[in-house]
């Protein structure tokens, strides 16, 4: 089955290109026919000339980024975007969610739907969509929300997994928290699951693990692409009977117990290091998995600076809030994906431990494991964890708090009203996100 990626706005188009690059080189370098075939089927198609084209639609309200991404892809010599799979306009949405959602989205609906339809027609079987975008700007967030809604309407049985980039907490678009709140509140009604990368976290990985001195958006995007690739490339699932899973999005959504109140997924990957160091490092599954488990329960996104003091709350305490509960990250469900050498010998029992989960789900439902013997992206062994847990509670709460403080003074609201988003609409969005925050907070009870 195939996945159609929809890249929206500057961020979506830059991250998306990096993702296809990783997936293409993984499929080509792996040298294992079934793996390559499965990977290509998911994300690429062969043109009649035998070239690889990404199953992607590129959308932006300004031309520069799409032009850049298209020509960068073509220059790779390995894959490219479809010649006519893109749609751009002259003038961006100006960092205004309302302009994207209320004006640009509806205005260009037909053109965008047509591009998507053509891409879907190329798929023998459609697994679903991955709309990729940032939540801080106007096009990715606003048009992205609108397009997600259209996909929902037209393809009701397809899975929709949104990939979102969250902005630096210390600010890069001044109305980023408004745009984020509006996007998240709407997507919560529309998508099956929302996979999040925070720029702050990825930035730290670049500087502390990859030791990059001057970090560019390309560096950041490569890390995001690596982590996403670790999730999305073919793997053997418990139900796939020794063949690569055919429905990557459906199985992902199923594994993570996505539920109307719990849709926020975070990702962590181990190991991650400067490529020059990889050759000099050896990895053992027990060590990797021990670290990854502690990263999960202490909510650290990096191998460095893990807090080893954090322990699951004792089961006997009736799982009420204990002193450690504050720093302990309770999970609803986790999906662990192992790739590389000796995967079949890896011991993953620590992730099935009921102590790390909320008490509502039996641990065998809460934990899923996928494996692939094919090493991923230069790492002899690597583990990626997708987690539906409290990991994003803190940044979500910060976003809502900051947006709410701004809303209390009504600053910038006139810019949204101008395009048809009222104070009422804001209040509705705040209400639904407070609900999400409350739900995730209660996981630990």
């Amino acid at each position, binding site marked *: 089955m195939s996945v159609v990626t929809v890249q929206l706005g*500057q961020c979506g188009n*830059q991250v998306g290109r990096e993702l296809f690059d990783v997936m293409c080189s993984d499929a080509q370098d792996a040298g294992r026919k079934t793996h390559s075939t499965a990977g290509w089927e998911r994300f690429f198609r062969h043109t009649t000339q035998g070239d690889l084209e990404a199953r992607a639609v590129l959308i932006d309200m*300004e*031309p*520069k*980024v799409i*032009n*850049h991404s298209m020509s960068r892809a073509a220059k790779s010599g390995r894959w490219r975007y479809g010649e006519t799979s893109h749609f*751009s306009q*002259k*003038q*961006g949405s*100006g*960092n*205004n969610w309302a302009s994207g959602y209320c004006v640009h989205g509806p205005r260009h609906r037909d053109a965008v739907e047509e591009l998507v339809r053509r891409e879907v027609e190329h798929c023998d079987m459609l697994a679903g969509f991955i709309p990729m975008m940032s939540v801080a700007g*106007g096009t990715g967030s606003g048009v992205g929300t609108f397009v997600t809604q259209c996909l929902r309407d037209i393809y009701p049985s397809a899975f929709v997994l949104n990939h979102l980039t969250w902005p*630096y*907490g*210390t*600010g*890069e*678009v*001044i*109305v980023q928290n408004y745009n984020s709140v509006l996007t998240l509140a709407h997507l919560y009604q529309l998508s099956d699951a929302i996979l999040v990368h925070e720029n702050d976290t990825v*930035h730290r990985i*670049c*500087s502390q693990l990859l030791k*990059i*001195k*001057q*970090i*560019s*958006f*390309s560096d*950041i995007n490569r890390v995001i692409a690596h982590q996403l690739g670790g999730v999305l490339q073919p793997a053997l699932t418990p139900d796939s009977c020794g063949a690569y899973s055919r429905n990557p999005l459906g199985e992902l959504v199923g594994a993570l117990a996505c539920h109307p109140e719990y849709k926020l997924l975070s990702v962590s990957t181990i190991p991650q290091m400067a490529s020059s160091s990889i050759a000099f490092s050896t990895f053992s599954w027990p060590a990797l998995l021990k670290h990854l488990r502690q990263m999960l329960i202490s909510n650290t996104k990096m191998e460095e600076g893990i807090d080893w003091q954090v322990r699951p709350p004792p089961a006997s305490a009736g799982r009420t809030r204990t002193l450690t509960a504050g720093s302990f990250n309770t999970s609803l469900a986790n999906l662990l994906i192992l790739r590389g050498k000796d995967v079949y010998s890896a011991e993953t029992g620590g992730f099935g431990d009921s102590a790390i989960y909320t008490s509502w789900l039996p641990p065998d439902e809460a934990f899923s494991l996928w494996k692939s013997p094919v090493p991923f992206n230069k790492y002899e062994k690597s583990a990626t964890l997708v987690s539906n847990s409290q990991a994003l509670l803190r940044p979500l709460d910060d976003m*809502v*708090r*900051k947006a*709410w*403080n*701004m*809303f*209390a*003074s009504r*600053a*910038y609201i*006139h*810019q949204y009203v101008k395009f048809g988003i009222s104070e009422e609409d804001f*209040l509705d969005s*705040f*209400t639904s996100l*407070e*609900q999400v925050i*409350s739900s995730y907070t209660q996981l630990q009870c």
Partner: protein
Amino acid sequence: MSILGTNFNSYDLAEPTVCVAGAMTQSVVVQVGQCGNQVGCRFWDLALREHAHVNKRGLYDEALSSFFRNVDSRKSNSGACCVGGRIQRLKARAVLIDMEEGVVNGILQGPLREVFDSAQLLTDVSGSGNNWAVAHLTYGSAYRESIVNTLRKTAEHCDCLQCFFLIHSMGGGTGSGLGTRVLSLLEEEFPDVCRIVTAMYPSAEDDVITSPYNSVLAMRELTEHADCVLPVENQSLVDIVNKISLMSHGAKPGCVLKKDCTVTSGHGSLSPTEKPFDAMNNIVANLLLNMTSSARFEGSLNMDLNEIAMNLVPFPRLHYLVPSLTPLYTLADVNIPTRRLDQMFSDAFSKDHQLIRADPKHSLYLACALMVRGNVQVSDLRRNIERLRPSLPFVSWNQEGWKTGLCSVPPVGHSHSLLALANNTCVKPTFMELRERFTKLYRKKAHLHHYLHVDGMEQSIFSEALSSLDALIDEYHQLDATKARLTPDAPRLSIAR
């Protein structure tokens, strides 16, 4: 012309047969009065040089199309050529308005003559006599029709007009009076096109006696009709120019001011042959160039022109954005170590790099944009924001009020540059000083009759302008007052469980 001659040759090659409309947006510069036209000219000169530097192939590209048309006089249909073809003849997307002829005639005899058509010019012979009322009311009514027609014609040449840049002084007559009249015409005619005004404020020793009247009368128009105003004070420009010439003359051997540095114009650095205002005006021209660079060129984090007001204007009237430019010069070394890059960020917040005399660090930020050009990455931005944040007071509801843009094309002669636009209460003292100077004249009714003679001018226009300024100052005052208070988080919405 000289600038085009060397870099942008005209070729006799045939045009490509398919004519694609430009993919980008366009902007139009409207320059009014002596100051507006002199500053505008510096802008066009530097813009041409910047594009000549970046555009090596002599093709009319997207970036050029944002401020220039490409016309072929041999063609019948008004000669417009499309993006992607050879550069034939570049025409500035500009409207030049002055009620006396001197400056515009000077331009028409200078090196820039070829970038303007007579259809883009609107002049009279008698001037406004440094009288806002004459320009705003008398000329404003007499020329209304032809101004609107000229604007429309210029707009018709754009397939996606995004922004008007209006340039004028506040102290004189034509710029302040007719310039602000043009502003409200723009609002009427093109309500969806962004209006960004660059306004030159008079210094205390300004030679125009009536400049306080003109400025306060113009301020009301700017407050009510502009999307953003970039105030620039002549005194600050003078100070900066002096600092730079100290740099270039008093510098240690080996440290020389680069020839094509931002503040010098075509004929070498600060030579006596330059007009007195040229060095000052080049600074303002650079402000416009850097503000529009991200809309013209590629970058890893684009900042379109419509993002300026969206991010920096929390309340419609509070749209005065204090600009600062760094570095104002580059020393001769090529490899600039990181320390100096960080210095660029520090300087953007220091008092002596602001284009008005103000101290943003000791006032209150409502919002701040950092528009970076050149080899600067997101980690440089983050590091500097983290470093500087603790020393900069931001309003309680916008503690992380940063907007950032990264454009990969540096300005000519530099490896990187930074334009900071601050929505900051530090504009208040400038406005209060202006009000004081106004009141001093107004109390004595000095020169008032010159204004009241003008048809349509009434004393109420003075008092309304004054109360508009009072209200504006008061709004900044109220914000300043929140600085001392510790503002707790707003109590969160509680939801039913």
